[in-house]
């Protein structure tokens, strides 16, 4: 644990299907736990105030910003990060494939968070309109794509245009 002397909590959580038990500092944010303790790269840090969405993960089936929650609050939860999207064999999911085919990423930094938001959106609304897609990902700031191709890539799933 990376914060000697701090108040601590014992947590048990399931991350990408794997149960982990750790002692964490009470003040540790979930994002730092996922990145620094578990070594995950999907959730990323882009802002101080919960606006950029780069740290978006699935928390009990719903997306949250992992920088806006303490690791201790995740005790008992099931968390999924972008690492869970591809098949265990490494094949891209339909959504990831659509991002690739539609050039929906450039630098790739926001991409993990956008993918998580897109997956959540599509679970609720399998064929969203462009407007619904934009609303669904408005909590994820992308500075490279102008969102055009992201909207296209997500919409293509609903329109069944992608072959993974």
């Amino acid at each position, binding site marked *: 644990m990376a914060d000697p002397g701090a108040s601590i909590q014992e947590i048990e959580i399931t991350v990408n299907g794997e149960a982990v038990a750790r002692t964490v500092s009470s003040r540790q944010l979930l994002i730092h736990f996922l990145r620094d303790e578990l070594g995950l790269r999907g959730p990323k840090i882009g802002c101080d105030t919960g606006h950029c969405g780069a740290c978006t993960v699935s928390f009990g089936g719903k997306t949250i910003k992992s920088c806006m929650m303490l690791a201790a609050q995740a005790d008992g939860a099931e968390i999924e990060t972008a690492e869970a999207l591809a098949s265990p064999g490494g094949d891209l999911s339909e959504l990831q494939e659509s991002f690739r085919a539609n050039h929906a990423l450039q630098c*790739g930094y926001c991409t993990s968070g956008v993918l998580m938001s897109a997956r959540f959106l599509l679970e609720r609304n399998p064929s969203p309109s462009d407007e619904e897609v934009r609303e669904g990902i408005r909590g994820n700031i992308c500075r490279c794509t*102008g969102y055009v191709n992201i909207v296209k890539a997500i919409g293509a799933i609903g329109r069944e245009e992608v072959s993974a």
Partner: protein
Amino acid sequence: MTAPAQKTIEAPTFVGQSMPRKEDERLLKAQGSFVDDEGMHRMGYAHYVRSPYAHAKIVSIDTSKAEAMPGVIATLTGDEVKAMTEPLFQFAPRANGQQVVEYLLGVDVVRFQGEAVAIVMAETREAARDAAEAVEVVYEPLPVLIDGVAAAEPSAPVLHESLGDNIAWKGLFDWGDIDLALENADHVVKIDKLHFHRYSSTPIECNAVLVNWDPGTDMIRVVSNNQFPMFGALVIAPSMGVGIDQLDFVSQDIGGGFGIKINSYTHIGVLALLSRKAGRPVKWTEYRTEHHQSAGHGNERTFTDIEVPVTADGTILGFKMKAFDDAGAYLHYEPLGAVIWSQVVPGPYKLKHVQVDYTETLTNKCPAVPNRGYSRMQHIWFVERIVDIVAHELGFDPVELRKKNYVQPEDYPYTTPNGCIYDSGDLPTALDKVLEMIDYEGARERQKQAEGSGKRIGIGIGTTLDSGTNNFGQSRILNPELPFSGNGEACTAMLDLYGEIMLKLGTNPQGQGHETTAAQVAADILKVSPENIRVWAGFDKSHSTYIGFSGTYASQFAVTGINAVIGAVEKLKSEILMVAAAAFGVSVDDVELANGSARMKDNHEAEIPFIGIANMVFANNATLPHEIATGVSLTCRYVYVPKFEVPDTEKKYGNLTLTYATQTHAAVIELDEETGKVEILDYAIVDDCGKRINPMVVEGQVHGATAHGIGAALKETFEYDEDGQLLNSNFLYYHAATATDVPHLKTDHIESPSPFTGTGAKGMGEGGGAPVHTICSAIQDALSGTDAVVSDSHNPPERVWRMLHAPGERGVTVSSKASDG
């Protein structure tokens, strides 16, 4: 050996295709490697101590409490840095030696809110931040200067005693005869003031640096997301007293740069010194709030005393103005911006007479640094504003006025008043096309129908230039002594031991897809699939090839990067053919490449796969004629050098840029009279960057640049209060455009190949700030029939509302000769 400067690719299979990117799989699977994904053994973490004041004397810094805290490894203050380093290199010291003195950390005086005065290194991120808060700094506040125009006045408080005033650079640019033009013009439109605001493209990954100054080898390994490391090396190495041979720069994936990440070199220096002091590696990841306060803002520029001569038929003869560019507190990359705008002096128009009295000032704000569209977009925005205001004031149709004054297709190559050569383009066709995309006539109809409804419709046009591959010789206009000119890029193409094809680039990209486009080009030359080419990701100085210009900036990869790839791969190809020809005992002319092999042209059965070629050269060289075995390496480095001359620094004349991509934008907006809120109803873009290597990647760049411009036009701004406190210190008040802020962008293109690049491709990606021009023009159009003049590049609801409900002085006058004159 000199290869021809211009290369073309014959009968391309892959060039020109919208191929999905090689980079994407790792990024989609969260297997990219950004700085914070990396670590080193015994690594500590750093946190800066920053000034809460915009201008203050540092009375004392006491690190003792911090050092006593658990887990603290080391601290470093400005005074320590001063003792062990030299001030940072300045581009344009005055002839009498007066110049800004800046060290890697603040010393004696802080000059903007967020300026770093000390840094703390600890075992954990938490301990570093906690300890940084325990560093005691006593400040004595000084008068604050935030107005970039007032900064030039003699009465202004002086920020840098070593400079004596706040003038970073000053110069008169004067081409043609503006006074005669003003005298002879039928109309002169005078505009008091136009203002281009501060903003940043705010990459989502903030700056990050991981440094190990290895005590054993004295090598400094720098893992960072700096986007132009060789520039950083040129600045910090002399300051730190190290050789550039000691600096090993490494980066793989970079989370956006947009120019802002050119500026992170000071952190590399500070972290290196901290690592040396601690004898351990140290990582620093910037917080968003730090990024907004200190990482760099795009240039703010105020234009005053503007005079525009116009003839009765609508020919705009040129302009005269004063420009005040606000560089902020220190000169980082500046004052290069004071000359870079002159790549696009007349914008897309045939303006002949131009006089610009240019002053770059220092203020108590975050240093200005290059941001997508750097220095040119401020100027083209100015040009587009005056064209728009001229149309509005004199009653010309804004479309016809633009078409009349555009550089015409038959004019290319077109020499501007200051000797720049616009290579190619077709602006009238682009404008027609983009207007069709927004159904211009239909939009005009909607505009009429909306009259009196409280919702005004406006149609805006923005034409812009994306000048790429700049001639660094333009820096000598600032300072004739500077040892910089030309441009270039390097690439190494290799076969590895089993014949694998590898490319190593110098470009250090941030999402522009260089791995893919380089592979497309190489595949066509080597007659293999791009999948068979490994382009090493990112940049590592220890194996990547580079020159002083290497990096990704200034819209040049498609020219410098790609031509370096072509040159290197052509060299590799010729070596492969030499080896094969020797093996076949035939002339090189009798051998060709196909399907990953070299074969006899007249006998396709006789072929040697690349593995065989590699084997002969690397492990079986006794089978080769000795002169071949010693004459080839299959490791082929090529440096592309565009043809430039050093500009005439007296006349400020010469070709400053190799290519000029153009973009023409059009927007239909709805303006809510009651709230001043602007909504984009329709948006279209026609891009012309010559030959496109990967159209999908090009369009992605167009989209991104457009989103930045739309954000800047309506939502994104850096504003300071009178105490020099930044009001938009993070995304709480800096409203970076989201998916619901950016409308669907219709894109199309035309193709005017550049005659100067061999491939016909032009650099692109910055977009020239076109949406800012376009939305200002649309707001102006929506406000037709009122007295309003759109004079600021940033138009949030309140500003628009004030134009309608609380108008101040118009600031625009027209004087015309007798009507029959």
